[in-house]
């Protein structure tokens, strides 16, 4: 059952699940590092490094998304839901691209470039400006919670389709040979 119309190409599925794992980790690390006192600096280093890694992978993912059409949605998806599916995909891409750039710009506004992989110093992409920092810092949190909400809705919708409507929604993005 490797019909390309029913399922995303392998490279797309790999990119999807890789980004899923990275973003779950990043959200968790991000919330922990601003709420717990210990290990702050190590977590900030990991957070900045993973953020840049995610940015690179998401750029690759966006480029890859233009190389193929999406597999057909199950018949259980009506036209209203179809619009929601397209909208949520676009929203997720926008949030995933914006969040690392906001983080990078936010650190830049404090007057330093992010340091990734322990010692690789990136250039600043925003001027040293405390007011700008605050706006970006608040936005970074808002986007984080927006990601939590959109991802929760995304996963819940796929679970309901797959388990309740039994329409094989998950199989479009899954690795199993069956279904």
């Amino acid at each position, binding site marked *: 059952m490797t019909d390309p119309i029913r399922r995303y190409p392998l490279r797309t599925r790999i990119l999807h699940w890789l980004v899923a794992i990275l973003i779950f980790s990043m959200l968790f690390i991000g919330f922990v590092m601003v709420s717990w006192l210990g290990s702050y600096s190590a977590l900030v280093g990991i957070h900045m490094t993973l953020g840049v890694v995610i940015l690179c992978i998401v750029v690759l993912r966006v480029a890859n998304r233009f190389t193929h059409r999406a597999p057909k949605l199950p018949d259980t998806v009506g036209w209203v839901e179809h619009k929601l599916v397209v909208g949520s995909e676009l929203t997720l891409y926008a949030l995933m691209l914006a969040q690392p750039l906001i983080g990078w710009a936010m650190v830049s506004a*404090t007057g330093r470039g992010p340091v990734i992989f322990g010692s690789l110093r990136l250039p600043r992409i925003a001027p040293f400006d405390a007011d700008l920092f605050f706006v970006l810092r608040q936005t970074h949190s808002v986007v984080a919670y927006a990601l939590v909400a959109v991802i929760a809705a995304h996963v819940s919708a796929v679970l309901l389709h797959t388990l309740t409507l039994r329409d094989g929604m998950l199989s479009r993005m899954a690795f199993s040979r069956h279904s």
Partner: protein
Amino acid sequence: MNRRSVLLGIGAVTAFLAVDLGAVAYANKWIGPNNTLTRETFLNAFRSVFGLHPGFRKNHAKGVVVTGHFDSNGNGSELSRAAVFRPGRSSVTGRFSLNGGDPNVVDTPAAARGLGLAFAFPDGTQWRSAMLNLPVFPDNSAQGFYDRLLAQKIVSETGKPDPAAMPAFLAAHPESAAAMAVIKQHPPTRGFADSTFNSLITFFLVNDAGVRTPVRWSFVAQQQALEQRSGGRNILFDALIRQMRNGPLQWRLILTVGAPGDSTTDATLPWPSDRRTVDAGVLTLTGIETEDPGNARDINFDPLVLPDGIQPSDDPLLNARSTVYAASYRARTGEPKSPPAVQVDKVTP
């Protein structure tokens, strides 16, 4: 779709959301053990002890901005591969400050004096350091710092701290009692200009060969301080401003090398005075200005902004300071601003 599949779907969604949102809530400390300190606990403690002072640092709130340069003589390269230790000049921007969260506090000789420095700001390989004129730090843990802060809280009925609070704190924190005894043996100098500023916390320098050396650093004053004029609320800052109008001030950077057995994780413990030192160069401060948007007012002197060649130790105060400074920075950058107490232009000649 039947009853079983509906239940299965709803059950799976509920289970997923419970784990997913539960993890978010746990990571944010909305649920789970509530007995540990957070960065917000610290900000609230500063607010409760010193009052609300929007727009200012939550600690070391009163200060003045300085600029200058550091001339490295190259001696530090023996210990660290950091660019700042190679022979040559780095730009420096910094800030002198007084301990405490009240930006309008009256200068007193006993208040701990701070010097924050940012080397090669904003586009070089930066090194930031926030130092004090004390020989040791009074605490060796975030909890100790927090408990000592609250022990100083003024009780509104009496206008004084609870007389039982500090003895109770010292009984619970013998390391702080010992550190305060050391501090008492080193009375403060006359002013900012003749104060030596110490890292207190240990860092590791890493040289080209990869050798890690524990060090504590000091900026040792190279001049006497001008006599202060009595009267006024800013006698220490005013004297510094008048002295800098007459010419630059200098401090020598001395790296003290720890020996085996010297604590690298406890800043309350002094190192023996016979430790080897390396004279790494001279800091020259040439400019002094009022805190303003875009100058060192807006720099977070985070002690963990370090160049390659300087590494943090495992001293728990480092992470605690870094995270609380970040929270203070976030809070104050979003608050309305009011003019700082130290106005360089208004100091009479």
